């Protein structure tokens, strides 16, 4: 089955007379398969919203190609838009209208039955607030209304920009259940851009991580986490005096193994497996008291990939990678790596 969304080499530079041009998208690629909940992740200013705006024809791209349901966007967008429901950035509505009237007018404009308004209001939990003016809605209620308007068309593709913004925990849970139901029970392809990593980890089947207007990595959420978790092992001893000796033994036993001594434990990476550590140390007459395999979560993978993880001695701005280098194992994918402690920044943005 062809991808529902195909974006290739998308470029966009914002130019304003009084400001330096800002390159929002720098050859971004994105593919979304049908019937999935796809997370679109990236730090602030990484180009997520710009991508969605370009895809939906709100802004013009400077280069690249985009397709929705195999049709060129934005040229053929009017032909497929009836299959797409979308909310881009913060939900905005005419505040003097009620939620119901807002949806009824949208439904009417697309030739849909006005009764759809009540159906989607029920779906997003706004039935009791339907006749209230939007100016009296909380941010969370506006967010639900935005999702409701995206659902009006019974879309095959649902694009939501930060849908959990402003929702309370119960609202987030409800939204998650709704989106998963849509994707897995109704066959709707859902694209969710979000900065709530735990939310994406719980909600999405696949994801694309972007930074600085480029795709960093994409694939199934579990695969991405597993692919970047490595084998990080924490080793403790009954007698902390054995730390130095154990470090020497492990380092000499295998070239690829990296061992870092911390005050009460060793942190080992690159070991073939946990049992290898037990055996190697035991062969040298050292017996460990605790061996734990530490698994990275999406947050640590995200921070590592986008280069926004806090570094020792440095305050790193979100969205400002320190330095990038090509990972030979990642088939040309740009993987940010940490700069040396105290490294100077040419742009002065990491001081």
């Amino acid at each position, binding site marked *: 089955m062809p991808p529902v969304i195909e974006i290739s080499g998308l470029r966009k530079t914002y130019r304003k007379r009084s400001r330096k041009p800002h390159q929002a998208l720098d050859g971004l690629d994105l593919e979304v398969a049908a019937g999935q909940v796809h997370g679109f992740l990236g730090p602030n200013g990484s180009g997520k919203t710009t991508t969605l*705006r370009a895809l*939906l024809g709100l802004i013009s791209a400077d280069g690249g190609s985009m397709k929705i349901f195999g049709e060129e966007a*934005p040229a053929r*967008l009017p032909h497929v838009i009836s299959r797409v429901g979308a909310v881009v950035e913060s939900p905005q509505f005419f505040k003097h209208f009620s939620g119901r009237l807002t949806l009824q007018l949208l439904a*009417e404009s697309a030739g849909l039955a006005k009764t759809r308004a009540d159906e989607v209001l029920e779906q997003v939990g706004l039935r009791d607030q339907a006749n209230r003016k939007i100016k009296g809605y909380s941010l969370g209620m506006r967010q639900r209304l935005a999702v409701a308007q995206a659902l009006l068309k019974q879309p095959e593709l649902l694009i939501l920009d930060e849908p959990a913004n402003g929702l309370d925990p119960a609202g987030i849970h409800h939204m998650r259940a709704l989106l998963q139901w849509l994707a897995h029970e109704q066959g709707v392809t859902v694209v969710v851009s979000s900065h709530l990593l735990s939310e994406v980890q719980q909600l999405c089947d696949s994801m694309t991580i972007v930074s600085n207007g480029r795709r960093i990595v994409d694939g199934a959420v579990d695969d991405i986490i597993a692919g970047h978790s490595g084998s990080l092992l924490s080793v403790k001893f009954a007698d902390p005096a054995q730390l130095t000796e154990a470090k020497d033994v492990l380092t000499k036993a295998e070239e690829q193994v990296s061992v870092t001594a911390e005050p009460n434990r060793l942190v080992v990476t690159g070991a073939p497996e946990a049992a290898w550590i037990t055996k190697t140390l035991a062969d040298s007459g050292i017996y460990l008291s605790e061996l734990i395999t530490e698994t990275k979560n999406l947050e640590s993978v995200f921070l590592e990939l986008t280069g926004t993880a806090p570094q020792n001695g440095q305050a790193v701005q979100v969205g400002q990678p320190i330095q990038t280098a090509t990972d030979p194992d990642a088939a040309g994918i740009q993987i940010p790596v940490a700069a040396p402690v105290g490294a100077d920044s040419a742009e002065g943005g990491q001081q």
Partner: protein
Amino acid sequence: MNLYQSEIHRTRRRVLTLIFAIMAGVGLLALTVIMWFNSSTGPTEAQLADAQEIADEMNGEYEECASDENFFEDSPDWSWALEDEYYEDYSHEEMCAEFFTTGSEWVAEDFIYTYTFHLDREGVYIIMGAVLVVGLLAMLLSASAIGAEWTSGGMANLLVWHPNRLRVWGAKLGAALTITAASLVATAIVAFGLLYLTASVRGEVGNLNAVWWEDSLEIISRTVALGLGMSVLGASLAMLGRHTAIAGGIIAGYLIIGDLLVRFASIALRIEFPERLSLYTWVEAWLLGRKELFQWTAAGREETMVITSTDAGILIGLVIAGFAVLATWAFAKRDVT
């Protein structure tokens, strides 16, 4: 068609539409009340009697003066006339005639002010004024329909539903024009009805013959056309500025200050027929069918410039079309962020 209909419904449901409709209704009623109380078909018997009394008194003053040779000597109010050299050679009769009207010339009607509203003479101009005022409201409403969509963020939402921007602009403009046309025609009909009623009861309807209808309909049609143009202008300015206040500011700024500056500049630069640089001149020519401008040459000769409704229509149409094209281009090309 669906989008156009929903735009009409959207505009109809706005609070501003309701406010403007109430303002227009109250304005028409106020106009009727004013006309009703100002106009009358003639004085009452009592008013006539009072006025006749005043007229008789005025006419009697001459008789009293003429019959009394010592009128001026005896009257403290008029004795000064005898000492005035100007009247030295005047006879007594001549002095009476100088100060008092002779021969019972005053009549009762001279002391009664009655205004009678004549529908056939004045009606069309009052209707034109009412339609113009409602046209201004419609222009603001059209500007607001676009401006509010931008400022509320609803435009981005709408474009996600309807990516064909020309279609969206066409639907919005079509809805604005439909509502404007309906409002203006309704205003003209209601105003005519109220004025007809007023004229029937408190004035004179006059002869509303075929010529009257032809002339009146021509003027009102041109006024409605101007109102439609104003609506397009308001919507276009709001589309260009992405805000109602920008459209309102530009229009109010030009009407109040801009036109004044143009007049000052034209006078300072000694331009021939300086009034032709004023928008009001062209609007007047359009509405009334013709406008003549006059000026005196250095040789003391009077020169005339005639602006016909066709000239005015072309110029006003080009200005409005220019803004509409600019707004269309801007909407089609701009990023919606």
